[in-house]
């Protein structure tokens, strides 16, 4: 298929449709409102359903309802909106239902601002909602990757009957890049929903989608089922990319999303000065590529986490490498995106430290 120039937000909407999703419930918020704008036009063309909900709570619970019936369903929002959805995300995880949530992150806390940030890392990877649950969190760095990961997200959501989150900073939503829509795996490849979806119980045992287990033994059993899934992710679903790791770098950067691209330009600039720096870019923020980071950190000896936040992923990087290896941090927040030159200076300072 020919390449198209698309805004990240629109490309995510189209990717969901190409993946077979016909259910989208959402409430607009900058910087991702173009997803709803695009799908308000596009969903009717494919006989799909788009409801602009009365609030993020409404949208998230419509997602819950559609997911319970075994339908492909997704929603998109930005940071404050995702906070409002977090209660329902916990319920969906507890009820083991597949759904895709897209967070095009803006600066916080509170209403914060409308410019790009990566300050929802904790929320996405450590909970957000209550209870012992995890999301599979995918972080695109280009519009093409936003398309590919959105399609993958539906596959993973059904494979594990678990909510999957796409975590993109505002820039991923706003910028335009060429994209290509590769044919998704046929919908027939999705696992059967018969054993759990509430599609009408005529002639079979009743399926119930719920997260309430008043019997502590039953609840703990559900906790173990969930934990077993998350353990499989650690083995099968860790994804990451690397840059310039083969030239004996003196410093290892860990960065994701737009920040990783800015770091790759900073690495090119330092290379011209004769300084080699390498990069590991987590594509799955959860499960986190801890083993790969440890392996390279041991060889290189020096690590820095570069983020558009006050320092969140850095805690996972430090946990990955242990306390014998120092992990530095550089970040800008509030919607400010550091320039490659600014990152170069931070990396040079880290190398001197």
């Amino acid at each position: 298929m020919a390449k198209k120039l698309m805004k990240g937000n629109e490309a995510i909407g189209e990717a969901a449709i190409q993946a077979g999703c016909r259910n989208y419930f959402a409430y607009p918020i900058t910087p991702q409102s173009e997803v709803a704008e695009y799908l308000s036009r596009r969903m009717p063309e494919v006989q799909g359903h788009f409801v602009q909900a009365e609030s993020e709570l409404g949208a998230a619970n419509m997602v819950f309802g559609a997911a319970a019936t075994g339908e492909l369903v997704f929603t998109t929002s930005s940071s404050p909106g995702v906070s409002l959805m977090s209660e329902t995300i916990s319920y969906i995880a507890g009820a083991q239902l597949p759904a895709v949530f897209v967070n095009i992150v803006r600066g916080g806390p509170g209403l914060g601002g409308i410019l790009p940030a990566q300050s929802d890392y904790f929320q996405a990877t450590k909970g957000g909602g209550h209870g012992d649950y995890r999301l599979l969190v995918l972080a695109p760095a280009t519009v093409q990757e936003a398309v590919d990961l959105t399609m993958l997200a539906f596959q993973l959501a059904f494979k594990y009957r678990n909510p999957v989150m796409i975590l993109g900073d505002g820039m991923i939503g706003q910028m335009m890049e060429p994209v290509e829509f590769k044919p998704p795996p046929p919908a027939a490849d999705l696992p059967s929903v018969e054993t759990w979806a509430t599609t009408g119980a005529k002639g079979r045992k009743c399926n119930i989608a719920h997260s309430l287990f008043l019997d502590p033994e039953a609840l703990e059993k559900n906790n173990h089922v969930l934990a077993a899934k998350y353990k499989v992710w650690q083995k099968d679903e860790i994804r990451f990319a690397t840059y310039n790791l083969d030239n004996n770098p003196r410093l290892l950067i860990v960065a994701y999303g737009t920040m990783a691209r800015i770091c790759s330009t900073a690495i090119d600039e330092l290379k011209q000065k004769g300084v080699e720096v390498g990069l590991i870019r987590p594509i799955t923020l959860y499960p986190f590529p801890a083993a790969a980071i440890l392996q390279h950190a041991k060889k290189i000896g020096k690590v820095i986490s570069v983020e558009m936040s006050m320092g969140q992923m850095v805690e996972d990087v430090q946990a990955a490498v242990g306390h014998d290896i120092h992990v530095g941090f550089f970040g800008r927040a509030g919607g400010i995106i550091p320039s490659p030159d600014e990152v170069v200076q931070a990396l040079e300072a880290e190398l001197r430290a």
Partner: protein
Amino acid sequence: MQNEVMFAGFGGQGIMLIGQMLAYAGMGEGKNVVWIPSYGPEMRGGTAYCTVVVSDKDIGSPIIDRPESIAVLNRPSLDKFHTRVRGNGLLIINTSLIDATTDRSDIDVLNVPANQIAMEAGTGKAANMCVLGAYVGRTKAVTLESLRGLVRYQFKSKPQFIDVNLRVLEKGYELGEQLATKNN
């Protein structure tokens, strides 16, 4: 080879459009491109801008803090952005609407009376095409032929505007090739 440009003016001048046309043209020529709009709180009558990168290789940082070229279509954009042109870079000034210039001597300045040229061709609305033409005439970031094709595509529902936009685009392109006014 990587070309980076910021187009800046006020809302309604077609800033976002010429940035997207440049990106489409680059993509059509098999290059990597990225287009980024200014987004954020902005005052009415203030500045609207977009940046475009056209590159033979993978584009690392999509954010260009100091572009090699900046085209300013109104006075607030000149004041706000002229210091951001990279050293030895290019500043295109729409002299029809801007009666000032930059005090920088380390960059090339290309003075383009874009609104005047567009009005002489038939519509002042095409001033943005003049600026796009001048930028591409000067840098050859994409070919004129790619841009011609995009003008025809862009105005396919209003074919009466194709010719005038093509004339303004080509006039700008000629200026870009010829008028290399060194500021110092």
